């Protein structure tokens, strides 16, 4: 009798679990475990390497804007490290399955983007705190210097991803991210100092607003693209 009750209860539990569907919040948290650990490891490595580089450079020379420029190279590198997560549906031909499930590709892409974005912003925030402590600079200004290249890389990658929907679109993003990093390296070693004068803060703020608007527009485009197989695999350029 007891055995039957236990069996019955287990069956009821199984059926209840099987028929229950996850909320958006539960889906969001579950996706954390499906992002490859190598992506998180690469991002952590970039932040640690930049932190160490910064620490070493500050000990050798006085903190200056050149170091800020050099540290901000972390931004495009972080985007590059996460790009494979954003392009993997297309790269591994998973679109059809991901377009036919309860939580659609559109939602999945947004979740992946936001998870990576949050991790990147946390990393950049940490770098800004370290720089502020070691270089005695205002943290809001440092965040501005880090966020503009980050946003610029995100915007460029999203622009590419929205227009070149091919399995190898991730490589184009990688090339673009490397170009941004290269540009920053050149600027770091041939510093255009006026860029970091207090009078130029307005320019940085304007750039931040522009890149945020650009990202918002590209995210909207991405949502539309991810709703149908036709648009999700289309080349628009």
């Amino acid at each position, binding site marked *: 009798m007891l055995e039957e009750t236990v069996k019955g209860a287990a069956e009821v539990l*199984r059926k209840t*679990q*099987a028929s229950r569907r996850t909320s958006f919040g539960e889906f969001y948290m579950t996706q954390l475990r499906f992002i*490859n650990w190598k992506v998180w490891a690469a991002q952590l490595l970039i932040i640690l390497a930049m932190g160490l580089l910064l620490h070493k450079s500050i000990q050798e020379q006085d903190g200056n804007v050149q170091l800020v420029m050099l540290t901000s190279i972390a931004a495009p590198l972080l985007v590059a490290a996460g790009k494979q997560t954003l392009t993997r549906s297309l790269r*591994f031909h998973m679109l059809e*399955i991901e377009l036919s499930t309860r*939580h659609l590709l559109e939602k999945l892409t947004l979740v992946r983007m936001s998870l990576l974005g949050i991790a990147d912003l946390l990393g950049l925030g940490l770098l800004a705190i370290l720089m502020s402590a070691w270089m005695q600079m205002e943290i809001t200004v440092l965040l501005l210097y880090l966020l503009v290249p980050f946003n610029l890389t995100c915007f460029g990658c999203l622009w590419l991803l929205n227009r070149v929907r091919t399995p190898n679109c991730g490589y184009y993003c990688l090339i673009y991210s490397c170009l941004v990093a290269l540009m920053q390296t050149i600027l770091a070693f041939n510093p255009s100092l006026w860029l970091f004068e207090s009078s130029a803060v307005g320019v940085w703020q304007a750039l931040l607003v522009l890149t945020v608007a650009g990202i918002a527009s590209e995210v909207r485009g991405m949502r539309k693209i991810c709703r149908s*197989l036709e648009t999700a695999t289309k080349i628009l350029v």
Partner: protein
Amino acid sequence: MLELTLNQVSKQFSAKKVVDGISARLNSGVYGLLGANGAGKTTLMRMICGILKPTSGTILMNGEEIGRMGERYRDLLGYLPQDFGYYPDFSAEEFLWYVGSLKGLTLPAAKGKARELLRMVALSEAARKKIRTFSGGMKQRLGIAQAMLNDPRVLVLDEPTAGLDPKERVRFRNLIADLARDKIVILSTHIVSDVEYIADQILVMKQGGLLMTGTVEQLTATMEGCVWSCHIPAREAEEWNARYCVSNLGIRWSCVSCPR
């Protein structure tokens, strides 16, 4: 009781009409979609799954347009695409957990269902192996398992037997026959024997249109008097092949005589 209705469904890509005004009413049972490559089977199935929108016409589930149903329709749906991909860094069970999460299953439910399905498709022993090490047949069986994760009421299988060996084909047919109760199962193939015994209805497609529908017996009856089996001299085979539609041509060297 389920009813999937296709009302004059058409799909056009640029100037080419791939699916042309298909109408059908599907209730619980197995439906075999037969047709040569390029007949429009995959496009029709993609529209049934809602991943492509028809250029004209509507697809209704119990009288409600599937696009409007959204999540409610996708909750009823299981789909195995023709060329489905997989994430190579996932093991078979991780892949099923992942698809389970997309289908809205909680992680414990997805894990339980994955275990059950892996057993059903005989992949229990390979559950922790990376998918990149799987053979074509194993990947196909995993694809079938992912389609069934949410206990779908509408199961759409595009070329499900591709890559399966004869033994696996038989196992698959039995599996579908078992699953078909209270479900609409639509499976496409160009191999008649795949659907001959399990399909309640066959829909034959040609150049985007529905050529004929019916049970195997009904379709076979329409061919009566149009199909022959005959013996001809080997030297005439080429001529006959050009003049008629020859399905099986066999050469028998049954009689050799040596002149004295």
